[in-house]
């Protein structure tokens, strides 16, 4: 534990700094009288908060959770148990991890909500998962409307709305909100045109059975299946097979 320092060090300062960094690493506030520590604390908070891909989900497990603020720590990392919904779905993904090797990686990049690797893909990139889930549910809702299954369509619309509400990417949120409104209009229009009964979901401009002009959208026959999603940049997402490209392949936007 004795540092091989080439020059004398003040052990009291070293211990104090260590305790400070432990606290900052846990996301704890900085001491009020330490301006620079406050800067580090704000930096740490900014890294966690700004456009957090995990926003709206369960709290991010903190590696330092449960640790004592003192330099000599013992508790360490709190390893959380898998959430039930992931328990249900993770089986095929883990098996594929062993069986498919590298193919798993490509699979998680291109996985869609109906794919066996979807649970793992969702764990790797929850933000992308939400976008694809919303796309998928809206496409299913459109099909349900076309088939006259209005109750199913309403259920899918409600599920899609819940997913869209937690999407943080402004571009995706705007696009999906517009699509959601369009599907709601179609559902309301189809219901009123067929049964003369208003749908339970408020619709701004219900129309009879005439198609509502809307922005181009994915084909209902292949909802979100491998389609590039605007604003979601996934490494290798446009590539059909292994190996997974490295960032050196020029897929990353240039740093300033």
């Amino acid at each position, binding site marked *: 534990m004795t*540092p091989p*320092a080439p020059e004398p*060090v003040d052990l009291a300062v*070293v211990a104090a*700094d*260590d305790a*400070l*960094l*432990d606290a*900052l*690493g846990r*996301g704890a506030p900085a001491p009020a009288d330490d301006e*620079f520590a406050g*800067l*580090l604390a704000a*930096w*740490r908070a*900014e*890294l966690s908060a*700004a*456009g957090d*891909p995990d926003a709206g989900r369960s709290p*991010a*497990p903190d*590696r330092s959770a449960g*640790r004592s603020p003192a*330099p000599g720590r*013992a*508790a*360490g*990392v709190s*390893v959380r148990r*898998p959430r039930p919904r*992931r*328990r249900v*779905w*993770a*089986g*095929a993904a*883990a098996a594929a*991890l*062993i069986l498919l*090797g*590298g193919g*798993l*990686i490509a699979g*998680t*990049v291109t996985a869609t909500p109906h794919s066996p690797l979807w649970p*793992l893909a969702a*764990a*790797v990139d929850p933000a992308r998962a939400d976008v694809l889930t919303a796309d998928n549910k809206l496409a299913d809702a459109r099909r349900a409307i076309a088939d006259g299954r209005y109750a199913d369509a309403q259920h899918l619309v409600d599920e899609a709305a819940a997913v869209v509400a937690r999407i943080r990417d402004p571009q995706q949120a705007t696009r999906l909100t517009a699509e959601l409104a369009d599907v709601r209009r179609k559902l309301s229009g189809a219901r009123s045109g067929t049964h003369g009964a208003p749908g339970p979901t408020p619709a701004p401009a219900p129309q009879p059975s005439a198609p509502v002009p809307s922005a181009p959208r994915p084909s209902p026959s292949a909802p979100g299946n491998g389609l590039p999603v605007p604003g979601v*940049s996934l*490494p290798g997402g446009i590539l059909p097979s292994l190996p997974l490209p*490295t*960032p*050196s392949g020029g897929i*990353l*936007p240039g*740093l*300033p």
Partner: protein
Amino acid sequence: MTAAEAAEAELARRAADGDRDAVAALMAHIRPGIVRYCRASLGPVAGAFTTADDVAQECCLAILRALPRYRDQGRPFAAFVYTIAARRVTDAQRAASGTRVAPADKLPEPADRAPGPEQRAVAGDLTRRLSRLLGYLPPAQREIIVLRVAVGLPAEETGAVLGMSAGAVRVAQSRALARLRRLAPAVLEEVRT
């Protein structure tokens, strides 16, 4: 190795052996730290962390790919994770610059001075300034600060990542803090103007 580190290594071992719950749990567990690591290392671009988050995802995928080769050898799992992440971040930096990345120029003045949504501009500003400040540290000290503060690794795990003893990490981080405290007023003012 602490009990928690051992628990994490055990989770990783189960994941490497194909335990379905363990794979999902492990990825959910490590991902937030990787996101913060990439954001701290790469900084914002045009006021957003999009690039860093893309690299973070690449890190997760690379870790998934390497996971079957993971064997608990008494080192914290963090050493396995952040060694891979560091390589990915370095690759991204090289791809972005096209040349070797000089520490002080790691994050040169980004193009986020253009008017834009206020929140986006404000969101990345502190990270941009801190990145500039950290660029004045030797690479090892900078990595220590990122791992200790941004990721939240204890000194022992940070040492395992960097191949140093925990004591060496504590001395190095103390020197880094002293240097940062000394440089902060001038550097932050320089970035601000």
